[in-house]
């Protein structure tokens, strides 16, 4: 499956900004099920410095800065991505690994798994929490396999949390999401990761896109797609297996991966510092279009 993704971010500043530094995390990853054939990031006004590097998590991040005075800043990322099947999902489906054996098995995995441990620990948006553990506990029966426990958990989150844009912000704690039972995909993902980590399991955050399918008989509107976020769980000997708790499904040919991190904080699409004190406003438009092979 081949996609063209256009992601436009525009900042408007009330007062002109003299200098800005930015970090952009909008280049899709290459991995076992995805190749990013073309990726291009355009910045208007054209930046004075621009370069790419690979971050700690293996994501491609762009860094740019602008010294010219400007009152709007537009960042456009266009990428072409080829998707194939996620084999890890099939392997996980038939895996008999019990969830409470995972830690021991990771240690046995040895050298390769040393960095997996960081995904069992709290991070910026995913603190240690008794409340989350309480919420998750019922999904982790003593003799459950990791696969079944993850699926039960995904269903529980899907059923208990209502998808409601605008109710939460980036800084809404996971515990409030459990309490208020409302959130967006980022909250779903953070909650599921938090549940897994509080049970001692390694889980990471996936940022990316999802293709939307218009209601039958309606034409797809431009700019109505969105960034998406889901979850990836480490299965010893198999690798990372993905779950989408917002939609309660296993990502296949509709999920395009941009970046992995411990949580949103590691992979925020655009982060920056502007020198100026005026107000700013932000609009984001995303298009995910299936293209000919």
């Amino acid at each position, binding site marked *: 499956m081949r996609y063209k993704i256009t992601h436009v971010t525009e900042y408007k500043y009330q007062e002109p900004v003299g200098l800005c530094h930015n970090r952009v995390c909008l280049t899709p990853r290459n991995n076992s099920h995805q190749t990013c054939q073309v990726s291009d990031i355009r910045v208007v006004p054209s930046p004075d410095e621009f370069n790419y590097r690979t971050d700690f998590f293996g994501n491609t991040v762009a860094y740019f800065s602008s010294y010219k005075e400007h009152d709007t800043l537009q960042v456009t990322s266009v990428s072409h991505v080829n998707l194939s099947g996620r084999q890890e999902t099939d392997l996980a489906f038939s895996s008999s690994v019990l969830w409470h054996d995972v830690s021991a098995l990771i240690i046995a995995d040895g050298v390769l798994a040393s960095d997996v441990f960081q995904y069992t620990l709290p991070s910026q948006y995913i603190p240690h929490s008794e409340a989350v553990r309480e919420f998750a506990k019922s999904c982790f029966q003593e003799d459950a396999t990791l696969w079944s426990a993850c699926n039960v958990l995904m269903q529980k989150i899907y059923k208990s949390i209502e998808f409601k844009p605008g109710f939460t912000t980036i800084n809404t704690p996971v515990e409030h999401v459990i309490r208020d039972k409302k959130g967006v995909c980022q909250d779903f993902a953070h909650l599921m990761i938090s549940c897994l980590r509080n049970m001692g399991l390694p889980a990471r955050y996936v940022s990316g896109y999802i293709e939307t399918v218009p209601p039958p008989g309606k034409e797809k509107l431009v700019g109505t797609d969105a960034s*998406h976020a889901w979850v990836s769980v480490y299965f010893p000997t198999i690798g990372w297996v993905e779950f989408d708790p917002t939609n309660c499904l296993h990502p296949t040919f509709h999920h395009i991966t941009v970046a992995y991190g411990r949580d949103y904080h590691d992979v*925020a699409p655009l982060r920056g510092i502007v020198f100026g004190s005026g107000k700013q406003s932000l609009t984001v438009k995303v298009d995910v279009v299936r293209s000919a092979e």
Partner: protein
Amino acid sequence: MQSINPNIPLETLIKGYFTNKSLDECFGFEGEVKNHWKRLVDNVEKFGVEELTNRQLELLKLLKENGVTYNVYGDTDGMNRPWQLDSMPLLISPLEWRITERGMKQRAFVLNKILEDLYGERRLLKERIVPPELIYAHSGFLRPCDQVVQPGKNRLILYAADLSRGPDGKVWVLRDRTQAPSGMGYALENRSALARVVPELFKDHNVTKLGGFFNSMMQAFLDIAPQGKEQPRVVLLTPGPRNETYFEHAFLASHMGFTLAQGDDLIARDGYVWIKTVEGLEKVDIILRRIDDNYCDPMELYEGSHLGIPGLLEVIRKGNVSVANPLGSSILENTGLMAFMHNIFKYFLNEDPIFKMVATWWGGQKKEMDYLIQHLDELVIKKIDRTNGSGTVIGSQLSRAEKDNLIRRIKAQPYLYVGQEEVSFSTTPVFNRDKLEPRYTVLRTFLVAANGGYEIMPGGLTRCSPEKGSFIVSNQDGGIAKDTWVETAVRGINTSLLHNSDVKRKAVLPSRAAENLYWVGRYSQRVLRTSRFIRIVLRNLTQGGYSRTGQESEATRSLLHTITHLTGTYPGFLDDEENEVQLNDRLNEIHKLICNPSVEGSILFTVNNLLKAMYAVRDRWTVDNWRIIDDMEDASRKLAALEPEGIRHVFTSLDNLNGSLLSFLEMNRQSMYRGEGWLMYRIGQLIEEMSLELTQYRALLAFQFDEAIEFQILEALLVSNQNLSNYRSVYRTYFDIAPALDLLFLNKQNPISILSQLEQLLKFIDQLPHVDKGVHETSISNLVFECYSKVRLLSIEELLKVDPEVEFRAALDKTCEELSAKIARISVSLTAQYFSHTTYQSAEEKDNFKLEV
């Protein structure tokens, strides 16, 4: 030294010393003086108690006058806590020092390896020499710093470790300081204070000098200079005057010839870091940081930081700036690492550590966690990092409930906790009142990467517990410092600092320093002038302005109004125009305007601002100036303590304050370097002086009064301006407004006439660096010139014209108003051009997640 006291025997000096039998550095268990301390104890005995007491006081006085302080966070009174230094040094025998040196160099080598590995290959984690969680759970492991390499052989540039001696006589490493180790400046200051106040102690000792270490430090910076630059510009990055060790930042900066800067003095652009100076941007090559690494770049590290430089990491990655210590090095301060050090030493060196370490159990492993919980009573429990406070607790001091709570927290996140053996320290004698007392002692040693390896400071910073029998040894808790002596067999080569040709480059004046010097000029003038004027009005009130008629005269009222205008404390005296006001109300208001620091515009308020500005550029004042600043603080404390009823006694305190301030100004006039800093300071003085004068003239002279009243007003004005004798000698007449205006505005022989001052201002403004030939530069000198020519062309006759209807000199009023406005604009333009600070914020983040099916 004419001390009539006979030399007292040691016995009286150490009476009661051996009540608690801990290991002592100086004395053996039988009370005998250890061999290598004998010469020092002899020298101490020779002083006698009385003389020793005097010297101890003198020592503290010297340190206080030199402005040696240790600030305590969250303690407004203790904002600048004087440094406590004991006159008895700590002696380390040559043999022991050799071991210390070897042990510390070995440890520095290994820590450097760890740092290299954790931000490089991470073999320690892959091979499980160190459990990965211990590193990944520590807030000091900064992922954005991964794989970042700076020039130079070593990553760890500056290193400090706290050592103590256990009951078995062996030396222990208590903790490592690896990100921005503090104390080396204090160590240097301790040495020079001791050498100055008690030189006799040094007799028969060959104490190794500390200067060589600072040379090595300079070499260390040359080694990490980007592109091998031979004359790198080094900036010492400080969080600012409120930081606990700000004294040291300023002291080191001026000792080493570095530029003292705060985060917003620096800017990252075009792939470099720049410092904002009055001459524009200057490139920075090396940053010696005294800021926690997470705060250094809000762009990639902690976003809420306003102490750092956005974009710094990207410049480091490009190799265009080097930071000591490199960002991310606080990972080495992870207390959990102590538990794995033996294996790490083996791994990198195949050697055992020379120094023992405090036995440490890391909770991240099941067995160790169980041990922690079972042995809580015998252990000190710590967090692995210092965010949200170190959380250090002594198990045996906890209540049952506290223990349960702690155990619950450990079980929830075991990898965040370590348990350490309680260690007892050895004691050293501290001179307290009239005898020596044993105090627990910790030595901080310092190393710097140089010559391919590490060099150690021969000595260090010794700190002792503030209370007898207390184990708390830290500056935050008010510890006592000691100089630390290491003896050399051969007389050391007298190395003077900076024999290298480096840092001989032109000094720059950072914009912030320029701004603070400008305000030192302005505030000092404001304090002087307003206090003189208030003083005169107060005299007037208490000596007749009131009492005779029972109500105030028109002259007094006019003078009171002027106070309100000068201090900007509206409505003040302007409010009660119609009401009958009692003398006491007047005095209370005046008391407030002098002594209440929370009233904006009051004298104390201005004095506090002046002191703040002085502190912010403390690296620029001489020791003599510090003594005066110290006096000013004392005087201002007395003013603050004055009750309203005692207002009549305010004169002495005000005189003391002004006396100190005048010496300060005179000291600057004599010795301040005539560079851009001087220009800023003088421009500030002139601008303040003229604006206050114009305010006075407008308030006092615009209305016409009867001759007698005008006489009183003029007298008060001329006295307060210290122009009375000038007036008498030049005009030789009764007070009259025409000659007075001539003297105040136009007389070029009068240094404080508006015209003289504008002339000087023109001269100074022309000497300022011209940043760019843009709009600003011309407009500032144009503005001054406009003022100058306006005054030059003034006609006194014109100014004197009175509108008889309202008895008002409209031309005078208008002239003062216009000039004041222009001078205010000069100040605004200067600020915009030379002092401009940038403010920045995080770009807004917003989710754009919508329902998907």
